[in-house]
């Protein structure tokens, strides 16, 4: 296992040659990412630190490898069902809905939301922004092509969210997959429809350093399973950023096992796994 001293050295080196700052990352997962990088590149930590100092491209690659890119279509269907039945209907009479997917990775969450918005008749009103630190992931998100077999397990989630109504078990809604994506089993691919791909604005964004880069506040901010990689101090700073950039009564959607722990928790009211910004 890489020692904590070496981890500190690595973080200090990255900080000295770039604006990336991993100081407030969660120790264990960061340590584990670094170990994976050492194994994948077959080098030791001293060599890694030296190479980072002199090779800018390598540094960028290391930063990308540190980020975790797990995302799934309709991950945690209960949250999406809540959005569908309890939250989104409130926006029926709004002129617009501003949505920010922070830490969107390869975009499955963005597409899930776009599909849901379309089913709710809210697609045209929505202004959708999506950001990530990892530009490779943003490119994947823009392309909207995912592996079929890998995502097969998540079709159940699609069915649960879009075809069923937990408040009325008899209701079965017919939403064909082909409305939203083309499946090519031979190529093992799912390709999102053009109208979905064209909608979001994707930008690189660094939650550690950057403020809101969109000159707008938001009705809904998604940031799911991102702040688990940060310590309490950085978590609180980011939640504050979100709080300051949500409209009152706006919603923050975190991962299923994330919570708000600092004083900023007082700005939110937790309802069914979502955080609603209080109006005062």
């Amino acid at each position: 296992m890489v020692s904590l001293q070496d981890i500190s050295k690595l973080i200090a080196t990255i900080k000295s040659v770039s604006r990336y700052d991993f100081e407030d990352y969660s120790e264990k997962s960061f340590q584990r990412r670094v170990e994976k990088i050492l194994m994948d590149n077959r080098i030791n930590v001293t060599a890694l630190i030296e190479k980072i100092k002199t090779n800018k491209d390598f540094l960028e690659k290391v930063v990308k490898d540190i980020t975790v890119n797990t995302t799934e279509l309709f991950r945690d269907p209960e949250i999406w069902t809540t959005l569908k039945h309890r939250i989104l209907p409130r926006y029926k009479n709004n002129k617009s809905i501003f949505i920010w997917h922070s830490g969107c990775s390869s975009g499955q969450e963005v597409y899930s939301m776009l599909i849901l918005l379309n089913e709710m008749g809210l697609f045209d009103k929505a202004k959708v922004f999506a950001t990530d630190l990892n530009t490779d992931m943003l490119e994947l998100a823009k392309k909207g092509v995912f592996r079929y077999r890998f995502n097969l397990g998540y079709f159940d989630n699609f069915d649960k969210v879009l075809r069923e109504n937990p408040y009325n078990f008899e209701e079965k809604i017919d939403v064909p997959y082909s409305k939203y994506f083309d499946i090519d089993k031979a190529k093992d691919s799912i390709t999102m429809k053009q109208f979905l791909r064209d909608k979001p604005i994707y930008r690189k964004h660094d939650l550690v350093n950057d403020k809101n880069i969109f000159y707008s506040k938001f009705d809904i901010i998604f940031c799911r399973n991102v702040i688990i990689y940060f310590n309490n101090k950085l978590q609180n700073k980011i939640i504050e950023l979100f709080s300051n950039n949500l409209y009152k009564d706006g919603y923050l959607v975190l991962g299923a096992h994330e919570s708000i722990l600092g004083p900023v928790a007082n700005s939110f009211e937790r309802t069914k796994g979502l955080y609603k910004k209080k109006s005062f």
Partner: protein
Amino acid sequence: MLYKAVMIGGSAGSFQVVTKILASLPKNYPLPVFLCLHRLKHVRSGFVEALSIKAQLPVEEPNDKDHIKAGKIYLAPANYHMYIELGNKISLSTEEPINHSRPSIDLSFISAAYTYKNKMVGIILSGANKDGAYGLKKVKDSGGLTIVQDPKECQVKTMTTASMKLTQVDHVFSTNQIIDFLLKLN
């Protein structure tokens, strides 16, 4: 007190063993107990409830950065890895599965071994793959106490035999012996 934590890893065939162990641990048990158990891909909810039925201690799937408290059972949430951090906190991660497992027993054990050193007890139960074997070795290497469920008693013994191959474990115990041992830590 000699120990600060107990961590139990298991997979196929471990559910009933864990249930029996939890049923035997009394209220005010002096240590936190971490469970890292594989589950079927789509069994995401209902597991805590099932384990809670007979347990006298509260069973929960922790949130990220929750403070660790004695007398609580922490079950690694579905689809997350669970780490034990320095500073008495749990952290979660959605990194890729390891050996097809998320939660990975290895990762939980490695992080616990690093944090608790010789102040922990690691237990591997019945299971159908090798996840956990390397983690248990790390517990032993860090001075912790290692136990495996007697393979003769396991519904599936791959996990326990793999653990015993990799590590000179301290005890090979039946479920009842594991329970007696845990109660004496009291």
